[in-house]
């Protein structure tokens, strides 16, 4: 009897220690991003948001303006492309569930979720960048829209499904068409969940790096927001500058990391205000 209780105590202790082994790296990461990123942004001043990166190895820091402007454009454009696509797909999955086509569509959406995002970048590269003879913010937005599609679609669908069937039946009994019921009644009731899905998609769009590697161009010698020209993105700047030996560029990478982390945490808090349970 005593042995069992002692074993149970040891088990509880082990569980706590192992769980902490997962939590401590996260806390360390957040603290490092806050300290090093804060240091970079403080040193660069407001110029961090408005200036171009300084030359490599220079004592000056410059800023990450091309990356931040590009990320903003990418976020808006990819959400504008991806969310309507996801909403339409979710409506189909919800309205015609049980049909063979809906099951197939769900299977494809799920596999899209597990496909490495770098491959989505390669696809857009082959289909858009090569024919247009150049990388562009538009190509990057398209890649990000494809990446966010399955996340937003599954989120919106589960929001629609949480609406009690009685509302749907009441609408149909009034003589509304299925489209009217789905769009006006069910989507109206589920609007908070749908909005949360949109926000989750946004957070995917600003954090993803791999789909942008061969699509967006990494052009940071000027600030570009023209969708048809090459641009930059914050994750891409981090990826490139982290691999350089230059202190000022690495500092910019930390500054951009702080901006990114702050943005996704803000998005998380906002999404949390809309729905009780957020799945990132």
């Amino acid at each position, binding site marked *: 009897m005593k042995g*069992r209780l002692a074993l149970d105590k040891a088990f509880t202790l082990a569980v706590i220690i192992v769980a902490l082994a997962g939590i401590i*790296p996260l806390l360390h990461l957040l603290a490092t991003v806050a300290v090093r990123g804060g240091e970079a942004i403080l040193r660069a001043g407001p110029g961090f948001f408005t200036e171009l990166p300084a030359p490599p190895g220079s004592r000056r820091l410059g800023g990450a303006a091309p990356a931040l402007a590009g990320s903003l454009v990418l976020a808006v454009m990819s959400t504008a492309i991806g969310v309507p696509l996801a909403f339409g*797909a979710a409506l189909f999955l919800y*309205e015609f569930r049980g049909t063979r086509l*809906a099951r197939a569509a769900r299977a494809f959406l*799920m596999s899209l979720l597990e496909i490495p995002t*770098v491959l989505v970048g390669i696809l857009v590269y082959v289909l858009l960048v090569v024919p247009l003879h150049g990388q562009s913010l538009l190509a990057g937005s398209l890649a990000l829209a494809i990446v966010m599609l399955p996340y937003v679609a599954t989120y919106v669908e589960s929001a629609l499904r949480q609406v009690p069937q009685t509302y749907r039946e009441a609408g149909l009994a009034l003589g509304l068409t299925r489209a009217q019921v789905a769009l006006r009644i069910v989507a109206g009731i589920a609007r908070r969940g749908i909005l949360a899905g949109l926000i989750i998609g946004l957070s995917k769009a600003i954090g993803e790096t*791999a789909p942008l*590697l061969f699509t967006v161009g990494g052009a940071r010698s000027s600030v570009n927001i023209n969708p048809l020209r090459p641009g930059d993105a914050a994750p891409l700047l981090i990826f490139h500058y982290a691999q350089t030996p230059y202190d000022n560029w690495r500092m910019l990478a930390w500054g951009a990391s702080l901006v990114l982390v702050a943005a996704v945490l803000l998005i998380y808090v906002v999404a949390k205000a809309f729905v009780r349970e957020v799945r990132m």
Partner: protein
Amino acid sequence: MTGPVPPEDKRFYYSLLPFIGVSMIVVLVLAAVLAYYSLPAVKKYGATAILGREWSPSEDNPSKARYGLLIPILGTLATATIAVLIGLPIALSMVVLTEEILPYRYRGLLGSIVDVMAAIPTIVYGLWGLTVLAPLLRETLYKWLHARLGWTPLFACNPFTGTTYMTAGILLGIIVVPYIYAIVREAYRSVPKKYRHGIYALGATRLEAVRLIMGMIRSAIAAAVLLAFGRAAGETVAVALVIGSAFNAPRCLLAPGYTIASLIANQFGESFYYPYMANALYLGGLLLLLIGIAANIAGLRLLGRARSLEG
């Protein structure tokens, strides 16, 4: 639905088809593009395109160039395996902590911590892994492993740098924790309350109860492992920053290496200057796609079985 379908409902059905078409087309066209462009590499190198260990580009003399993907393939499997071995116990402990140990009002807090882990972009994990984790592991864990367990081939090589297969695996382990946690926790909560009450009423300790419940949801745990493996195998930029980018076989985990995804990230941009190199990278992409889809299908099937058992 019985009876004739009203024409406006039919129109609704057809108007939504393009939306579900997008994801189908993306997956199918992606597979076709990767297969089409990898064909030249398969034709030229045959089985050595996959089983060859040599990756030596040659700018001026294409006939001397060799592109074999064996090392990145093994590197992908090795790092994803380490990731699961590290991520699984952490995620399971967090589930037990949330569901069995923490007082009720702190459970939401742990859930939020895991949400934040999932929300942080992997590129930031990569930057942290390169700057903080890699040097730390080299000075502590790797030196210790090499000194104590250097007689096993896994730790035989001297850890000259912090960016290694092991570092990539450990970082991926942290990254996949939230995925495993989400699936296992959902399954754990779906076990009917009366079972838990019954188990505890019989006088079971916490350990005994957890072992019984984990046994009930073992297909969900297996599914989580598979899906996390797929995620880890496909992760690109975080791995590219911490794996060291070198063609060493992952026989020794303390050496720098390559995965398929990090090879693509590093070399796809310049591959068009070298005949056949891009084709070999497309072949790598095709393998990644197959790994991802296989993990997904197997994982979802297990998850489906777990869900039908609950019903």
